[in-house]
């Protein structure tokens, strides 16, 4: 730490002023994790825990979408991969009797393999063509799941998916939170290493990226593989938590919601999808009493964010940090002048 000689106060200020130091980047995530760990000890309402468990799984899904989006690919069928994970794990444990823990991990790997196979065939598609291709593939996946008869439960959905552990809300809360923390750490490392830099380079100009030696196809497939693994994981975990799944949870609208989580949270920031998912699930959930109007509220929130915070909510936070830094710099500058 640069400010260590100034004691505790200097250290605290250092957390805000030097964003490059490892410690400063940890403070807010660690505080958030501590808060989330404490919540079940304080909050007794099972309904509130249920909402948070749902949020945790969807944060994993939104983060997985981000891993693909930073490479400049817009997978408009991403929620369908969540469905693949959910159905694969649900069917494997219901029909084949696999223990849920095993089937969840297996389903994530299975989703990743499907993702890689598709990514290979989509390697030549870019921008709009990739988006259209993945959109129709997503529709096809949902239709295949609908046509699965008793195996998938068809239109009425797959029910009776075996639960995990004692199936209490508090247990699930910590399982989901644990999965979220592990996934977020894994994806954070993915993005902040040179791998993430190369993906962002490809999204800015695939011609330039190739010209300096970045293998575009390899990296794009890698991004899809990682994204598919984690969205499969989220889908599978969620399926065992709720016990009943239906294909309507994984259609185009569901993908749009995932995109909204990422965009409202802020596309330029790793924490964007986390913040966005919390906001967009929690707010409509607590306006449930308005029932038919809740989509309007969500749409209103989206408009507000697009107009007021083009960099999303996480972007707003960055702006605040920059202001504080500017204010502190101004103050020390004045002190020097005196």
């Amino acid at each position, binding site marked *: 730490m640069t400010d260590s000689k100034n004691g505790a106060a200097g250290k605290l200020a250092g957390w805000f002023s030097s964003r490059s130091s490892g410690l400063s980047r940890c403070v807010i995530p660690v505080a958030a994790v501590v808060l989330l760990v404490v919540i079940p000890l304080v909050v007794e309402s099972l309904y509130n825990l249920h909402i948070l468990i749902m949020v945790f799984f969807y944060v994993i899904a939104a983060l997985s979408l981000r891993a693909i989006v930073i490479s400049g690919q817009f997978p408009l069928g991403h929620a369908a991969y969540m469905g693949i994970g959910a159905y694969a794990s649900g069917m494997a444990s219901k029909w084949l009797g696999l223990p849920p823990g095993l089937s969840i991990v297996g389903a994530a790997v299975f989703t990743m393999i499907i993702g890689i196979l598709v990514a290979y065939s989509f390697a030549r598609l870019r921008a709009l063509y990739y988006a259209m291709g993945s959109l129709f593939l997503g529709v096809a996946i949902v239709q295949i799941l609908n046509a699965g008869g008793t195996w998938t439960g068809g239109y009425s959905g797959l029910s009776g998916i075996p639960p995990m552990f004692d199936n209490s809300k508090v247990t699930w809360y910590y399982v989901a939170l644990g999965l979220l923390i592990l996934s977020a750490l894994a994806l954070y490392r993915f993005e902040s290493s*040179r791998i993430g830099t*190369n993906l*962002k380079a490809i999204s800015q*100009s695939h011609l330039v990226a190739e010209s*300096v*030696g970045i293998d575009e196809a390899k990296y794009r497939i890698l991004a899809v593989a990682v994204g598919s693994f984690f969205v499969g994981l989220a889908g599978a975990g969620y399926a065992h938590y709720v016990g009943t799944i239906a294909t309507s949870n994984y259609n185009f609208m569901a993908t749009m919601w995932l995109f909204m989580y990422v965009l409202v949270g802020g596309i330029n920031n790793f924490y964007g999808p986390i913040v966005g998912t919390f906001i967009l699930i929690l707010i409509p959930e607590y306006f449930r009493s308005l029932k038919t109007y809740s989509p309007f509220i969500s749409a209103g929130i989206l408009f507000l964010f697009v107009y007021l915070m083009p960099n999303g909510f996480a972007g707003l936070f960055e702006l605040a940090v920059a202001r504080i830094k500017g204010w502190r710099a101004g103050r020390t500058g004045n002190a020097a002048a005196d």
Partner: protein
Amino acid sequence: MLLQIEGLTKRFGGLTAVDGFTAHVDEGEIVGLIGPNGAGKSTLFNLITGVFPPTKGKIVFDGRDITRKKPHTVAELGIGRTFQLNLLFADFTVLQNVSASSQVNPRSSLFDMYFNTRRYRRNEARIAERSLEILQLLGLENYKDELARNLPHGFQKMLGVARALATSPKLLLLDEPLGGMNPSEIDFSLEAIAKARDSGATVLIVEHNMQILSLCDRVVVISFGQKICEGLPQEVRENEEVISAYFGGEHAST
């Protein structure tokens, strides 16, 4: 011979952009490739770097056939290039542009990158150091934290060169390094290319600005996809066929 091009042909539908082109570049040489607009110069660059495959012909670089290799492989083998249009990583800073372009030497595996191994950290430290050196060489060090999209045109061109240098190329391909520059930027660029020449770099320059001739050891002239002349800058400047290609047939005859 570092680069050897033999009978290269590229057809886009009915249009023959490059037609049986043969040329070579020796080590330590600066070769100018000049010709009027639409002569096939940029297509030739794209063929050499593998952006698209040739219809016919062969490209040998450093003893290896690179005819149908992909761009990233060509870059790995040691050909760095700039683009005629200012293509860059617009949302990266100047420094990030150069360090993101340092993929080849040193090279980290995916495993090293993900698990932040000692080798990866050492490589990244070396890349950071060398990126700064490259920026200093090209006079961009004061703009290192500026977003690339905010740079003036001439500096973006120089950043393109910096990016190409970051790949530690054995051969540097510059696509219209003087295009759209004002006179002072042109002087600056010519100086930078001269510096590169003095340090022993091998460069192939595409340009239709004839000022570049003063820097070249040898000049190849291309028109309608075919080589019409090759020689010392002085010879080329006085060649009848070149003059007619640039100024039209009538001018040449009067």
